[in-house]
């Protein structure tokens, strides 16, 4: 079974890019369009890792990470967030909320795959 990754982003093009990169590397991908959707999908399924945007409508990535970490079933699941260099403050907050790591936008798909491999381990 290949690892199953949940990607959460309100941008369809970013979702598509992450999906192409991750499925190309052999991972299974499920997509969510905002924090609310992401939280529901994360709680409804079993994922090995979550990649999330921070700035999203309805529920932002920070709130989603906090909510996930508050649920005992989701401590320990790696959560990687996408950030732009201009959100240094958001980055610190996301880490404090319990994120595992980050990818700086714009990212190239290989970098995403590399970080995914790093986080998921062997």
């Amino acid at each position, binding site marked *: 079974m290949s690892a199953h990754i949940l990607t959460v982003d309100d941008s369809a093009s970013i979702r598509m890019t992450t999906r192409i990169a991750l499925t190309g590397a052999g991972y299974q991908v499920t997509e969510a369009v905002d924090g609310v959707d992401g939280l529901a999908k994360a709680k409804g399924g079993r994922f090995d890792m979550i990649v999330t945007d921070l*700035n999203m409508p309805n529920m932002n990535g920070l709130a989603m990470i906090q909510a996930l970490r508050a649920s005992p079933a989701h401590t320990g699941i790696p959560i990687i967030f996408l950030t732009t260099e201009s959100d240094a403050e958001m980055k610190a907050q996301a880490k404090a909320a319990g994120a595992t790591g980050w990818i700086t936008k*714009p990212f190239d798909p290989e970098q995403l795959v590399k970080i995914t491999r790093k986080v998921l381990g062997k």
Partner: protein
Amino acid sequence: MNLMDPVQVFRMEAAELFVVIEEGLLDLLGDLSNQAQIDAVFRGLHTLKGSGSMFGFEALAAFTHHCETAFDRVRKGEVPATAELVAAVLEAQDHMKALVDTPNGDHEATGNGLLAKLQAAVGAKAAQGCVVAAPLPAAVAGTSSAAAPAATRWRLRFRLPVNAMANGTNPLGLLDELADLGDCTIKADTSAIPSLDAIEPDDLHIGWTVELTTTQPQPRAAIEDVFIFVMDDMEMVLEEVSSAPAPAVASAPTPALAPTSVALPLADAAPSEPARAVNTAPAIADAKQTKPAAENVRVPAERLDELMDRVGELVIAQSRLSQLAGVSADIQLRSVSEDVERLSGELRDTMMVLRMVPVGSLFGRFRRLVHDLARETGKEIELVTEGETTEVDKTVIERLADPLVHLVRNSIDHGLEMPEDRLASGKARAGRVTLSARQAGGEVIITIRDDGRGIDRERVRAKAEASGLIQPGQMLLDQELLQLILQPGFSTAAQITSLSGRGVGMDVVKKTVEALRGVIDMQSTPGEGSEISLRIPLTLAIIDGLLVRVGTGSYVIPLSAVEECLELSAEEDLRSRGRSFISLRDHLVPFLRLRELFRTGTPPDRYQKMVVISTGNERVGLVVDQIIGDHQTVIKAMSKLHHDVVTFSGATILGDGNVALILDVTHLVTVGQQQEAQLRAAG
């Protein structure tokens, strides 16, 4: 348009973002303090910048960055939103559209003019800041000790933050990565592990000492790169232990574990583009002239229905062709037929997608309804919607609107209590009604959930007995009891209020859902609330069916309802004669002989087959003469003359031009269950 091309998707997305940004800006003009709209505009600009930079629209990203920065300051309350700023961003938006349409065009002069306006609107500092750079170089540069080709030896002592594992870091993965860099010996330091009764299983109390021999050209950077995500919060001492000439090691190699502050140079892009001076008067006119080509086309719904009909006809014609080709020896004909089969299948799938619309458009209507109901009833109601992006066939959405209104009214009217009663029973003052949609297999499940008082089973029973729906004292399963609510002429409201009991009733809800070939599941816990789920097939026009023969006629059973097919041996048939039950893995399943039901009159085939179908938890077997196989079934409605026929839900045309009737699964299961109930009552 190729939907697999992220750049195309980005263009469509940009068009949508422009709508969001524009609406936000226009709303802001009416109310400059509207924080929600300020956030929405900021988010739109932020996404536009982020996605734009991903797909090579660097000029767009750089320009949008300035607008985003300006709105970020507004968002944080550093500068007020002014009509001037809003107007400047509206103008800037037209420029952004031009940058999306012709990313390589010469837009610099226009852009600079607009930035000057923006600057003027938020004060000089707004347009400063960085420009989004091309894809980042490797995130770590690190202090490079001499690029030694020879192996170097390093000693590394580290301790991750206690919550590292809870936050998703796998220490074993980090050790694996270190091992990938060269030969290493790893020692765990377990001295900080607390006693068993004080231990939290998610906490990490182990430290490690690693001795690593590596030939990496930049060993320090490579080692630090392993810890990139935890670097800021961890304790680490990294020292080179080989006897080579000591390189300039930055951190003092003290024996005690001391937190280091090896801040990673995260390649903060240099502020390379200081605000450019005002130079030319903006030439916005040309930006407006190039009107962007619409990426989305609006089509009247009837056209889609027409197209769907045509696709249906094509599927029928194609199955005739396949049948002809199947018996022909002409290789070329067969090859063409296979191509047509594949193409019409793809066309059908595309058509299905075109008919899908997000269920959010349906849910949107309920905000107003709930608001009105709250005022009318004096209850406090919180409406929660989930899964708005779930896509459903548009016909399903149209037909579900009224039943959903009724169900939501019911939840509020009968389910939710008055605020005082809720407080008295320890609940939140405001009742919550949740509307959610999700897709599961070939079905969409729409759920209406409330946290009210739940369905009063005693009252349901009393009412059903009074109205003759059930015998007094009749034993019912819980699900059967709840389903009574859906029977015609049933209403539990002690007094019929102006809200419920008006317009459609629950029996109409049931009829509508069944007409959509769906089923209703109900759950209710006294004092905690009720949940009603409508499970509806994703699409209506074409289904996968199982084609069977009974006598000389062909019939289609919707494949989604078929559980299994088995042979009814002659002995079993004889043995069950008069009882019409078969034991299926320790469950008695009633079955119907379709030959008898349809009065075929022809002699039965020697080996009778049974198709077990189900709706929800109820199963029934259908005995047929022959199972022909699966069949792409284009559903044709039956004529008005046949509207009272209950056994069939429609008809379809087979490849040879014959008509096959589609069996109404829900009805047949009900007939089967009645048969079971009669037998139970008799026995």
